[in-house]
């Protein structure tokens, strides 16, 4: 009769419950859609081609994003320079831009009539043509490389400064530092980041379609859209949604499963200082990477800002009302996300392997149209869906943000438990005091980042709101689309700029709150 020593279990109930609710939310929506389906449903050769393209572009996008992100994160982790904070904050920007705004920004730089093409034209060279797989991957890298960079940067910052001190004291060359300190960290962080980007790209549809150049760039999400809207074939929509969930789920489980078991060492919170990488070639290389990343992000963003400035004074008053609506939808989503993500992260932070984290990725893999339609079917018999527009939007936004938040929070949680579980036990810290005194301060920087990302994503999301829309309560992205749909391109560009400022502002406030504790 082996007796278990007591261990401090945090969110032992809340964690699985919160994670399980993701499952239930999706499952209920899926079942609701299926309940209205006409069977049987066929899955033909064309569908397989769609599936192949979807997976292939997502794999390429994830690989490129992560491969680009690693040197950038490394350079950012070991360099201090004017504007670093600004750049790190900007890393949150592409991700939260409405797809159409970002795509137009990218095309302003890389398009046939873009700045690069004009530059090539000066030398008598033909313009760039990025339509096709390369365009899809380029746009996905633009969206997701910054996110991957932030995740990997956090991994770098989690390496205790004492270890760098040791490396510096031993005079280890960068190569050895990489092998002994950085490679094990990368093996921890990169598969998760790649899985996240993969799933994001898996459900992409407007990017893939617009830059893919035609129906050969059909993703599963577009097929789902077609089933709902063009064919009104709910059975097919449900099956395709299920396929998407299975592919994303499998990928997530694989990626997270290959994460090695965690061995973390504690360090005291000393400011990070690097003794390696002081040579000139290292500096130049880092400068090149940072410069490239900054250009790659800043150029399209400045295109968005430039065209937005013209339209800023052209905007009808309703745009400002919509901005206000978006602001508090964003805050509601963020509050909900925090309540949801903390127990899940605490629970996952105590498990030995990361596999369970895959559950939360399902929230991202589920088609928003499917969730929206499913819950519409559920709510409709009992109440006016319009009355639920904002709560549903907030829940779905939080659901979509949950995998990001979990990905960001879990390593910090895990580290906190590894370092302090004995001390917590010795002092009898449990329940709310444990959260307040140990966990929240330890993960504060990560929590700020996660909350900022959620707020920004929520502000920028068009999402399910269209299905539940109340004509009097429009969100800013919806209003922007309405402007575009009415030829008001300048005003729409102004609204896009306002959206960018609002989203970045919310991101910055949360992120700053989190990082403020570091200094």
């Amino acid at each position: 009769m082996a007796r278990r020593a007591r261990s401090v279990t945090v969110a032992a109930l809340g964690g699985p419950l919160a994670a399980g609710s993701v499952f239930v939310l999706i499952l209920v929506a899926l079942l609701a859609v299926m309940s209205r389906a006409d069977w049987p449903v066929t899955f033909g050769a064309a569908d397989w081609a769609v599936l192949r393209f979807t997976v292939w572009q997502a794999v390429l996008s994830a690989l490129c994003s992560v491969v680009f992100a690693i040197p950038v994160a490394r350079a950012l982790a070991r360099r201090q320079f004017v504007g670093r904070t600004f750049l790190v904050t900007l890393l949150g920007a592409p991700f939260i831009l409405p797809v159409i705004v970002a795509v137009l920004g990218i095309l302003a730089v890389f398009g046939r009539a873009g700045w690069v093409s004009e530059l090539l034209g000066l030398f008598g060279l033909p313009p760039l043509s990025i339509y096709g797989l390369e365009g899809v991957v380029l746009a996905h890298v633009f969206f997701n490389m910054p996110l991957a960079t932030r995740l990997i940067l956090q991994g770098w910052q989690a390496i205790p400064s004492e270890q760098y001190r040791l490396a510096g004291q031993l005079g280890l060359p960068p190569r050895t530092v990489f092998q002994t300190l950085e490679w094990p960290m990368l093996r921890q962080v990169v598969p998760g980041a790649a899985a996240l980007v993969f799933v994001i790209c898996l459900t992409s549809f407007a990017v893939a379609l617009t830059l893919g150049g035609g129906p050969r760039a059909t993703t599963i999400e577009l097929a789902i859209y077609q089933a709902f809207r063009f064919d009104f074939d709910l059975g097919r929509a449900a099956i395709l949604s299920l396929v998407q969930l299975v592919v994303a789920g499998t990928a997530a489980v694989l990626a997270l499963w290959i994460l090695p078991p965690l061995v973390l060492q504690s360090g005291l919170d000393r400011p990070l200082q690097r003794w390696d990488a002081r040579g000139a070639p290292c500096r130049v290389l880092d400068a090149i990477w940072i410069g490239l990343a900054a250009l790659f992000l800043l150029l399209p963003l400045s295109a968005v800002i430039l065209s937005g400035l013209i339209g800023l004074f052209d905007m009808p008053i309703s745009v400002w009302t919509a901005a206000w609506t978006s602001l508090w939808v964003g805050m509601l989503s963020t509050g909900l996300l925090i309540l949801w993500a903390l127990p899940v992260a605490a629970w996952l932070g105590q498990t030995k392997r990361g596999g369970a984290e895959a559950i939360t990725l399902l929230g991202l893999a589920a088609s928003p149209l499917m969730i929206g339609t499913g819950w519409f079917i559920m709510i409709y018999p009992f109440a006016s869906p319009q009355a639920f527009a904002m709560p549903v939007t907030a829940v779905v936004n939080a659901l979509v943000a949950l995998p990001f938040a979990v990905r960001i929070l879990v390593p910090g949680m895990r580290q906190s438990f590894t370092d302090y579980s004995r001390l917590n036990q010795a002092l009898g810290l449990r329940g709310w005091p444990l959260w307040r005194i140990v966990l929240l301060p330890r993960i504060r920087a990560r929590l700020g980042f996660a909350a900022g990302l959620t707020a920004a994503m929520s502000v920028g999301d068009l999402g399910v709101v269209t299905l539940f829309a109340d004509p009097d309560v429009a969100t800013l992205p919806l209003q922007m689309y309405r402007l575009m749909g009415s030829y008001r391109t300048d005003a729409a560009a102004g609204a896009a700029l306002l959206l960018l400022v609002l989203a970045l502002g919310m991101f910055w406030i949360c992120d700053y709150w989190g990082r403020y504790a570091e200094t």
Partner: protein
Amino acid sequence: MLRLEDLRVAQGSFSLSAAFEIEKGARIAVIGPSGAGKSTLLGAIGGYVPLDHGRVIVAGDDVTDAAPDQRGIAMLFQDGNLFPHLTLAQNVGLGLRPALRLTADETEKAHVALARVGLAGFEGRTPGDVSGGQQSRAALARVLVQAKPLILLDEPFAALGPALRAEMLDLTSEVARAAGATVMMITHDPQDAERAADQVVFVDAGLAHVPQPVAEIMADPPEALRAYLGF
């Protein structure tokens, strides 16, 4: 004060047995080769390592199934004794009240404890700001305010130099005496044992021997201990 009844711990192929009793106020040094099970012994007493068999009695109470903080035990580990994001005063305050909402009285107590270990004026510093010796002192200040009848030390001073370590051991003895507490400490150094302990528990090959007076065992070490000490 502390009674181990037929205690047995098994971890894979390793196992440890112990059965002995310690007087109130005693200062026990736990000595033995690396991997002999010294940390496991303290972990089992402290409630961090599950028991396969036996009971742990502290001050007359059976604490075999109690949580670590419910055993009347204060423990310091090799590392990770302080939260880096809290000030030294807050870290000490945790020993008074895990919820850390201290009354003015309790705050005063924490400050007095810090002063007692020579850290007056350091209340607002964080662990990253102070030296290793000062970190150890702060941890001891917390043990002081915890006022538990049994103090377990799993080599918290191993990283310090001999002079500083000796100082800390003296401080520990002082703290323990003031609280009337019993102390069990793991050490590698017979000199430390002679300095800060009255009795020695020798741990070897999965067996924690019955405590013996330091002078006696050092004067005439058993064969295994002789080999360990290099006599």
